[in-house]
């Protein structure tokens, strides 16, 4: 049995170690490329969103590499992503692939399904104690990877030589990838952090601070958003986002009250759950406004309804909190030049604003 799963940032490292630790052979999903998009666009409905197409493309690539089990996440609520698992399975089986497709829904959606999925992953002869230990190590890996991600988003803006932080980050990620036990993961994380913190920096800079909001997949996967955090970081901007793989899992499975403050912040503008991360995009923008961030970038897959709803509310939030918002709609036609031009213009806007505010005070 060869297991595979979608790619979302560096999280594949954690999932790979977990599956291998449980005795499965793993087909590591290849990094997303034009090839993925080409497959994805060929086999997906034209008006499906970009995350759907990229997942289709990834699945085709891993099936070509011999995977026969694909594990994916489901979802609840009005976003059509909840339905994607079923649709993907149908499309791929129509193409002619023979495989088992496991959609892991949050336990509160269907506890029995969740339990059965866990049972599928747990080898019968493995004791529950050791199983949980392995899950714990993988979880530590995922949080360590997210932690590094958060750290570089803070550090890039200070680096003396453009690209140094990214290099250190990639090395740090490889440390985590080569760790095996819980203890090794902890050590790798410490070493990785040191490496990133040691990159020569100019601490006297006063970088702009920009919040990133939007749909989870285009926010997390750098290929989807043209590496926006690195792009902005290397243009001298500190970025912050509240969506990470581990926070998402934690907030949907056991820490379900954790995002209430975001929903509370959104409430004056949007009370209704609109699916996906729509309400979060509104709430987070409010919070960035309250925290005096310089700006917000909203990332939305083209045709994503939750983000369209959020987008039509954001101009009001932007006015109320005097925080500029740039929306980027992303699909397979998105050109890099267009994104770069808008980001440059947006940063010019933020810098001018900062200067004017500086002169006033």
């Amino acid at each position, binding site marked *: 049995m060869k297991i595979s799963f979608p790619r979302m940032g560096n999280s594949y490292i954690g999932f790979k170690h977990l599956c291998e630790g449980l005795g499965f052979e793993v087909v590591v999903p290849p990094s997303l490329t034009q090839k993925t998009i080409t497959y994805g666009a060929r086999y997906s409905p034209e008006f499906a969103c970009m995350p759907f197409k990229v997942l289709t493309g990834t699945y085709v690539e891993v099936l070509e590499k011999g995977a026969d089990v694909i594990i994916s996440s489901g979802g609840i609520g009005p976003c059509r992503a909840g339905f994607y698992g079923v649709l993907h399975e149908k499309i791929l089986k129509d193409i002619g692939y023979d495989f088992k497709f496991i959609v892991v829904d949050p336990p509160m959606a269907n506890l029995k399904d969740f339990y059965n999925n866990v049972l599928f992953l747990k080898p019968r002869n493995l004791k529950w104690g050791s199983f949980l230990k392995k899950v714990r190590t993988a979880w530590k890996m995922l949080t360590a990877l997210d932690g590094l991600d958060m750290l570089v988003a803070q550090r890039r803006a200070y680096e003396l030589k453009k690209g140094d932080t990214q290099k250190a980050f990639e090395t740090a990620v490889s440390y985590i990838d080569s760790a095996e036990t819980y203890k090794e993961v902890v050590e790798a994380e410490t070493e990785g952090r040191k490496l990133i913190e040691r990159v020569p920096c100019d601490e006297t800079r006063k970088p702009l601070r920009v919040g990133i909001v939007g749909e989870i997949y285009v926010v997390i996967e750098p290929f989807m958003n043209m590496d926006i955090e690195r792009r902005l970081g290397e243009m001298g901007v500190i970025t912050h986002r509240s969506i990470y793989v581990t926070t998402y899992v934690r907030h949907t499975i056991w820490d379900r009250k954790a995002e209430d403050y975001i929903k509370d912040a959104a409430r004056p503008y949007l009370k209704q759950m609109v699916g996906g991360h729509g309400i979060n995009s509104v709430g987070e923008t409010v919070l960035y406004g309250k925290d005096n961030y310089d700006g917000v970038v909203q990332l939305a897959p083209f045709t994503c309804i939750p983000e369209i709803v959020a987008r039509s509310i954001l101009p009001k939030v932007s006015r109320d909190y005097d925080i500029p918002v740039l929306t980027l709609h992303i699909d397979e036609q998105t050109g890099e030049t267009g994104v770069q*031009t808008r980001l440059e*213009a947006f940063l010019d806007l933020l810098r001018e604003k900062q200067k004017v505010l500086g002169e006033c005070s």
Partner: protein
Amino acid sequence: MRTYMGIDVGSVSTDVVLIDDDNNVIASAYIRTAGQPIKAVQEGLRLISREKPPEAKVYAVGSTGSARELAAAIVGADVVKNEITAHAVASSTLVPGVQTIIEIGGQDSKIIILRNGVVSDFAMNTVCAAGTGSFLDQQAARLGIPINEFGKIALKSKNSVRIAGRCSVFAESDMIHKQQMGHKMEDLLAGLCEALVRNYLNNVGKGKQILPPVAFQGGVAANEGMKKALEKALGMEVIIPKDYCLMGAIGAAMLARKQERENGQTNFRGFDVTDINYQVTSFECTKCPNLCEIICISIGENDICRWGGRCERWQISGEK
């Protein structure tokens, strides 16, 4: 005389200007890019060097537009700036107190909102032709009307025809329908202007607070029919700056001047670049499945710059 050059290489036209310290346009050139940006830039420089007074010396160069990097590499620019900022800089200097800039070019359209002289919001439309000049161009050609007559004819209309403007393909079929029903040419053209304005305001201008003074610039501002349609839709006067189709280039020149005042030097290669034979080659990098298309600009054997890659493998800085 100290002068500053601005180059705006857009998809349809390439504009080059020389301005002096008081924002006077000393010389200007307008060339169709025609898919050959390098040639267009060289031709622009040739025209400028012919038109400018002999005592005018170039102290700094700025480039903007979708081929700004390319232009910068060829000419040796001191400032490379996106077109939104360049337009905003030019308008806010030349149109006192401007709060809204409407720019409609050949293949893109923008709206820039300024408050207290600072850009506070912007939007840009690049993929849809329904809100841009190319569509007017194409329809004028279809109707056999020279594009510079378009506006004058549209102004004669007393009863414009309503044309579906959401998409240029639908607009065209709707126009053909209306034309076959026997509507007058001037009414059709005025209707087309209104459809374009409607589409622009609903698409690019969506959610933006349009306050006067409004500046209307870009190639399409030459069309009086468009000005009238905009004024009708907005219910306010629309100002067309004197050099409406050079605003991007003027903005780039102003930014270059600012830079020169700060550091007092320039990378300008001189007007001789018009005689250099630049070669452009491209290839597909096969080092990873991204298959990036790498573009090289070279003089003889030397690559002066390369771009197009997602990674740093092929990068050489555009400076020298």
